């Protein structure tokens, strides 16, 4: 299932070759990142068709603009940024241009109060099948507001830095931080409803 362990995947060497016109090198880059970009696109747009478009457009744009890639950031960060822009555009279009603004100020405070506080069963990931876990995690992310899930995806899943995330989304560093906190706490709470140790609260699954 997992891809063959990439024997020394050398991103910068491949980028260098691709920029010199080596199509095979670009192909390897796509092979390496396509699943992550698709996942990112799917989580942001929450729509299969849009995710497919984003995947295509991101790599096509990257290929077209390879000359413009300066190499002062990682290729991966760069492609993520392209994909995020595409995905947000799709999202805005689909929502009829009204709700989604990543610049909206968000209230902090009250909502950090945690309602679900319970210890988890041991190793929940071993008690469910891979597919079940995948579904639980996906549903939890999809329940977040777009600005929260986007920040969570970039920071915790794609492992961009706070600064890179701020830059990719065009928002401030404090905004990244507060959204990440809210996203993490919300996910923790959602997963607690699934994974809390049984028997301590008979109403846990209502």
């Amino acid at each position: 299932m997992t891809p063959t362990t990439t024997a020394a995947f050398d991103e910068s060497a491949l980028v260098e070759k691709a920029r010199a016109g080596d199509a095979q090198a670009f192909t390897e880059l796509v092979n390496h990142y396509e699943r992550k970009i698709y996942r990112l696109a799917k989580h942001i747009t929450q729509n299969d068709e849009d995710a497919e478009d984003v995947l295509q457009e991101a790599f096509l744009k990257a290929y077209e603009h390879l000359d413009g890639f300066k190499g002062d950031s990682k290729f991966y960060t760069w492609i993520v940024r392209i994909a995020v822009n595409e995905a947000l555009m799709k999202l805005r279009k689909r929502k009829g241009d009204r709700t989604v603004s990543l610049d909206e100020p968000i209230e902090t405070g009250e909502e950090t109060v945690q309602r679900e506080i319970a210890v988890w069963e041991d190793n929940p990931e071993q008690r469910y099948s891979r597919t079940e876990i995948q579904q639980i995690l996906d549903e939890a992310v999809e329940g977040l507001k777009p600005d929260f899930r986007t920040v969570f995806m970039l920071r915790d899943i794609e492992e961009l830095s706070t600064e890179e995330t701020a830059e990719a989304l065009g928002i401030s560093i404090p905004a990244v931080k507060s959204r990440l906190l809210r996203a993490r706490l919300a996910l923790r709470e959602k997963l607690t409803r699934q994974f809390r140790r049984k028997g301590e609260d008979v109403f846990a699954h209502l």
Partner: protein
Amino acid sequence: MLTCKQFLQELNDYLDPSTDPATKCHLEQHVNECPNCFIVVDTTKKTLQIYKGLEPQTIPESVKARLWKALEKKMAARKAQA
């Protein structure tokens, strides 16, 4: 001592390995004395672990095929130009 609300505002700093030891120590005090926040910290860590441990799923074959078709077209166009 910090209130739970104050602590939760700083939770990310507490979880961030690059946070300076003095800040961490200050936050640690609350965790040691507050069973609720202890659980929140523990389950937040587990939440992140479980997300990070999950490999992205494979892309549906049809989606992949269309991506490659589009890329090949673009690559061929570039070759023709050169």
